[in-house]
C-alpha cells in the first residue's frame, strides 16, 4: 500500500492533463500521458500502468474515443484498470466506456483528494460511481417496484440493496456515508457497487441496448 499507484493520463487537452496531474496527491504517481487513441493504446502496452485515467472523447483511431482505447487493451484488463474521466453527462458516453470494461466513471468537476481516492479504489479492483453514473444506472434499470431482482444472478434487475446503495450515491453520499447510513461496512458497499458495475456491463436490459444501438456502440 506504500507503493504509489502508477497512473497513465489520457486526454487530448494538455491543459486538462496538467490540471489533473497537479490535483493528484502523493498516493498516486503519474507515469505517462497520451493525447489520442493510438498513443494511449501504445502507452498502456509499454508502461503497464495500474490505472488509466481516460477521457471519453479522444481523437485518432477509428473515431471510437475512450471506448476504443479500452477495447484495444483488452489483453491487459487484468493488470490495467480504466477509470473514465469526462465533462460529458450524456448517458451514451457513460455506457460506451463502462460496457467495454472501464471500472468507473467520474466527472472532471471532481476535486483532487476524491479523484486520488477513486484511483486507489479502482486500482484495488473496486468500482467507482459518481452520483451521475448512479442516477444513470437507476434510470436504466428502472425505479418501480417490479424492477427488483429476486435472485442474485439476475442481470437485468438490481437487488433492493443495490438500488438502495445507488440511490444514496446519487444523493451525493460517499461510500463511507453510505456504509454508515445502511449499517454495513465500506467493503460491503464496494461489493454492491462492483455487482452493479457487472450488471451494467453484461445486462441486455432494453434501455442499455437501446442507447447503445442508437449510438452504434455495440
Amino acid at each position: 500500500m506504500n507503493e504509489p499507484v502508477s497512473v497513465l493520463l489520457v486526454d487530448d487537452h494538455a491543459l486538462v492533463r496538467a490540471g489533473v496531474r497537479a490535483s493528484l496527491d502523493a498516493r498516486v504517481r503519474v507515469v505517462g500521458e497520451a493525447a489520442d487513441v493510438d498513443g494511449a493504446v501504445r502507452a498502456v502496452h509499454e508502461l503497464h500502468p495500474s490505472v488509466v485515467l481516460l477521457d471519453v472523447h479522444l481523437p485518432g483511431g477509428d473515431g471510437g474515443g475512450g471506448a476504443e482505447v479500452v477495447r484495444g487493451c483488452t489483453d491487459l484488463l487484468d493488470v490495467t484498470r480504466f477509470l473514465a474521466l469526462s465533462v460529458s453527462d450524456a448517458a451514451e458516453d457513460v455506457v460506451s466506456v463502462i460496457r467495454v470494461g472501464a471500472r468507473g466513471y467520474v466527472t472532471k468537476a471532481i476535486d483532487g483528494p476524491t479523484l486520488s481516492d477513486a484511483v486507489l479504489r479502482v486500482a484495488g479492483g473496486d468500482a467507482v460511481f459518481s452520483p451521475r453514473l448512479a442516477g444513470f444506472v437507476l434510470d436504466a434499470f428502472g425505479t418501480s417496484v417490479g424492477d427488483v431482482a429476486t435472485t442474485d444472478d439476475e442481470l437485468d434487475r438490481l437487488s433492493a440493496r443495490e438500488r438502495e446503495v445507488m440511490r444514496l450515491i446519487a444523493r451525493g453520499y460517499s461510500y463511507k456515508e453510505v456504509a454508515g447510513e445502511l449499517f454495513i461496512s465500506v467493503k460491503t458497499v464496494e461489493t454492491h457497487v462492483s455487482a452493479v458495475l457487472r450488471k451494467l456491463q453484461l445486462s441486455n436490459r432494453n434501455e442499455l441496448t437501446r442507447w447503445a444501438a442508437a449510438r452504434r456502440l455495440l
Partner: protein
Amino acid sequence: MRGRWVGGVAAALSAHLRLPVPAVRLAFVLLVLPAGVGLWLYLFWWVTVPTGNPDDPSTTRPAAMSRLAARQSLVEPGRRLPVTDVGIALLMLAGAVLLVALRRGVAVDTRWVLPLLFLLGGLALAWSQLDAAQRGRLQRVAGGRTPAPVLAVLGGVLLAGVGVVLVVGQVAGEGLAPRVLAQAVVASLSVIAGVGLVLAPWWLRLMRELGDERTARARESERADIAAHLHDSVLQTLALIRAHADDSAEVARMARAQERELREWLYADRPAPSTSVAAGLRAVVAEVEDTRTGPDGRPVAVDVVVVGDRPPDDGSVALLQATREALVNAVTHGHPPVSLYLEVRDDALEVFVRDRGEGFDLEAIGADRFGVRESILGRVRRRGGTAQVTSSAQRGTEVHLVMPTSGDPTEESS
C-alpha cells in the same frame, strides 16, 4: 411568396421582372383571350417554378458565411383563394352543366366522361406535388409522419392509369370488354417496365448525388450553427471573464452559468420546462445558482441527478417550489458541495437536497420563522406529501420531500 391569389405566379413574375403585380395579372387575363394562352402559361409556371423568393436574403446567404443560428423558415404564405374549394366547385359546376345538357337532349357522349374524369383527377393529384404549399397541407393532413407526397403520387398514377385504360377501351370501340382492357394493361405495364429498366441506373445515380449533397449541406449548416453558438455565448463569456479576472466570485459564477448553458445546448434533446419535471428542476437550479451565493459570498454549484421524468402537474409544481426554497437554504447557509437528487417514480416524486454545513436544530427554529417550516415543509404537506429535515453537525443537512403522484401515472420516459 406573399400576396398570392391563386398560385402566386403573377406575384412571382412581378418580383422577377420588377413590374407592378396588377399589370402582370392584367397581362395574364388578356393573354387568356387568344386560345387561352394566358391560362396555359399560368398553369405551366405554377407547376414548374418552385415557390419561394430567390432574392430573399435568408435563403441566398451561404451557410459558411452565416454567423447567426439557423434562421427560422418563412411562415407559410397566406393564400387568399382556397384553391381546393374552387376546384371542387368547378368540378361540380361542370357536372351540373353536363346533367342539364343531357336533360335538354344534347347528345353528349357520356362514355367519355368517366375515363376523362379519372385521368384529370389522377393528373391533378400527382401534379399538386409540385406546389410546396399544397405539399405542406397534405403533410399536415397525414399527420406529418406518413409520406403524404408519395401516397398522393401513387394515387394519382393509379387514377390516371385507370383513366387511360378506360380511354383505350373507348378508342378500341369495344367498350369495357375484359380482353381489350387486359391487353391494354399488359401493354402499358411492359412499356413502363422497359423504360424503367433503361432509366434505372441514371435515376439511382441522381438519387445518390442528391443524398450526398443533402448530407454535405446538413453538415455545413450544423457547423455554422456551432460557430454561431460559440461566438454568441462562449466567446463573449470568455471576454467577460477576462475583464473581471480579479473578481473570482464573479468569474466562477459566469463560468458556471456558461457551462450550464453549453450543456443545455449540446444535449439538445432535453424537453422544455413546461413539459417535463426534470427540465423544470434544472430551470430552478439555474435560477438559484445564478442569484444566490454561499455564506462567504462565493457562488455554489449544485450537483443535480435526475432519474426518470414525466409531465408536471400541481403536485410537482408545489414540490419544485419547496425544492427551490430548500436549495436556497442549502446554498446560502450550508456548505458546498450541494447535492440534489430527484427521482420520478410511477407512484411518487422524491427529492433530496443535501449540503455539508454545520447543520441546525429544527426545533430551535421558532414557529414564527416562515422559511423552512412554511415554504418547504408546509407547502409539501398541504398537497398530501411528506417532508422531513435531518440535520447534524457531522453530516450536514438533508431535506427529504415526497410527493405522491396525483391522478393516473403517465408513462415514464428515461
